[in-house]
């Protein structure tokens, strides 16, 4: 049976992945795949780090309300990807992270990528998207206090994360196409992606501006009314 039944086995796996498997993959990739190693290594690292974060989630106790909010926000982000032009994914991830912590933010970002790609096309880019959106959430969680206090900072974070997301995905495009990392190709990819980057940045700013007050209000309300 491949299913990891025992808790210990899962715990072992959690230690093995960061300390042994990721370095091993990097070294092995470098040795085996010579010039093609960038694509392989980056994909493997992306995949493994996502797995790492997600198994970390299993370990802790999560209340039912938090779990519901995480799934509601993920589903909203997935459904929001159907809005023309403006995509709320990063904004939803950031807001969740600010109010529920970085781990929930990571989860919302990563799961949105995974699930929405069943509608928008699954591919080797999925782990990258999961990692990129997940990290946007994770860092928003770390910066929760200042982001909650200052609206300007929040919008700046939205702009930065839009650019970050676009450039991360460009790295992947380049590596996938050429097998290795070609700065020349990367430059043209970034230029070609400017319309997309703009759309991400604008979406983030618009949705963050739109959601910041009502979302906080709503969660505070739930906290008072039901003691979440």
């Amino acid at each position, binding site marked *: 049976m491949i299913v990891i039944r025992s808790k210990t086995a899962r715990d072992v796996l959690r230690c093995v992945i960061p300390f042994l498997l990721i370095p091993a993959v990097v070294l092995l990739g470098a040795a085996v795949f010579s010039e093609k190693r960038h694509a392989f290594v980056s994909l493997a690292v992306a995949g493994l780090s996502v797995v790492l974060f997600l198994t970390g989630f299993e370990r802790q106790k999560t209340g039912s309300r938090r779990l519901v909010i995480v799934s509601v926000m993920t589903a909203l982000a997935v459904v929001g990807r159907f809005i023309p032009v403006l995509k709320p994914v990063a904004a939803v991830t950031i807001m969740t992270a600010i109010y529920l912590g970085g781990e929930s933010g990571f989860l919302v970002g990563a799961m949105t990528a995974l699930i929405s790609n069943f509608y928008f096309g699954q591919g080797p880019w999925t782990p990258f998207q999961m990692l990129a959106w997940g990290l946007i959430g994770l860092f928003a969680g770390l910066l929760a206090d200042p982001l909650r206090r200052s609206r300007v900072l929040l919008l700046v974070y939205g702009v930065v994360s839009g650019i970050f997301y676009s450039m991360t995905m460009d790295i992947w495009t380049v590596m996938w196409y050429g097998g290795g990392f070609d700065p020349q190709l990367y430059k043209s990819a970034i230029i070609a992606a400017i319309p997309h980057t703009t759309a991400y940045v604008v979406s983030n700013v618009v949705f963050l501006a739109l959601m910041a007050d*009502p979302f906080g*209000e709503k969660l505070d*309300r739930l906290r008072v*009314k039901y*003691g979440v």
Partner: protein
Amino acid sequence: MEILAVKELSFTYPQTNAPAVSDVSFSVRRGELVTVCGATGSGKSTLLRLLKRELSPLGEQSGTLLFSGTPLPGLSDRDSASRIGFVMQDPEQQIVTDKVWHELAFGLENLALPQQTIALRTAETASWLGISDWYDRDVAELSGGQKQILNLASVMAMQPDLLILDEPTAQLDPIAAAEFINALKKLNTELSLTVIIAEHRLGELIPISDRLMVLEEGRLIFDGEPRSVISQLRSRPELMCAMPAAAQLYTSLGFTGEDCPLTVREGRNFIEQHFRRKIKSLPRKETPAPAPPALELEDVFFRYDKHSPDILRGLTLTVRTGEIFCILGGNGSGKTTALSAVSGIIRPYSGTIRIFGRRLREYKNQSLYRECLALMPQDVRTMFLRPTVREELSEHGAELPDIPFDISQLLDKHPYDLSGGEQQLVGLAKVLAAKPKLLLMDEPTKGLDSHAKLRFISLLRKLRNSGMTIVAVTHDVELAAQCADRCAMFFLGTSVSVGTPDEFFGGNNFYTTAAGRMSRGYYENVPDVASLAELCRLNGEREDAR
């Protein structure tokens, strides 16, 4: 054997003075089916939630609760979760997972039962409740009634000793509600499951109940065998209006005693035994001269996709100015689709729709929605955006004095803190702000208790008397019988019969009110209990009666 004992239970919510439940004592024996009733806000829900530890609200609580002899707080988490089952009102929101099989397994997964046990219990429950055909389906594909049966099944898979249900049929149409009650009856009689159920639609429930408890302002005012409780309720019209039609007839004709009829069959026997049959029907009301049409549909066809079947198949219908027109029909008969077509949300591929004589497409630039037509959606929550009712109203320019009912005490509340009936009123106020002459409503009484329904009916009459034309799509035959000027029955995308409530409900055999069914073949054209009682009085009692 006593399964539940409640002694001197009181409960007060934080930041309120009046207790929500005060000094309630009762006990329930194994295998009993206990119905709890009372108006919205009488403390039913709070009482039931106090019986289920995981759902107990925060607040000040006193008194004792014994479950099978153990104090409720002393139960282990596992026992508390599995031995007391709880089904809530909203069929949609209680579902947790995306597949029927997963939902059935959810509780068992939480208890970390072995794979074999989960497989057996889900299979057993699904087979017994007759839902094994759905086992692999997405929950999104199920109808509201099916969802509620699934909620019942997934609680039953945990094999509870006590099942608590909080208004489980309030959101269902009458047919689905009857099915749900039947499933409950089967569980109660064949598994001798103990059931405590709060409900405000009592027609089908009272005949199968062993006990009826009535709550008022947090106090248990009546507790006993249904017939004796009902005989004590006769001076309380606001509670009586929720009782079965036969019982309402019995008390409104001045009868008292222990032989109160509860079902349609008993009601019919009661009429035949006690009343003569000289006059068969009430004199017809004069039909007013036909007013000009407010809404005309002519051969309207609609389908969602090129390859999907027609939803509206040559629908032809005329609604006259200043009438309340009710559209009845089962699920999928095209009722709601017809409203969407009339309000211009969807566009039929053939046929014409005229509103006040003008074709729908001649209303340019949103002029349709200004002082002409308004649509009250089935779910008013699709309208609420703001944190207070006041802001909700001002967004549409609704002024308090213009609203034909009083919602001033709700203004500073959050729309989601209101009861279903109050939400309905706020939604209506928003819709009326556009000063429509034609008001379309989709299932306006869904989830309202009987008393709120009566108030809503008088509000509809008031609106009509001020000149508004109202078209309501509804499953609720009692609503149509009491307030409609004319009714239509939809079937498979067309209107199969149109008439005044007397003709309509007197003529229908199955799709009619309880009063219509009780009197059918004995008297004619009886739409509701009030007319039946009047007819009985006119005929007078038989000499050989009693």
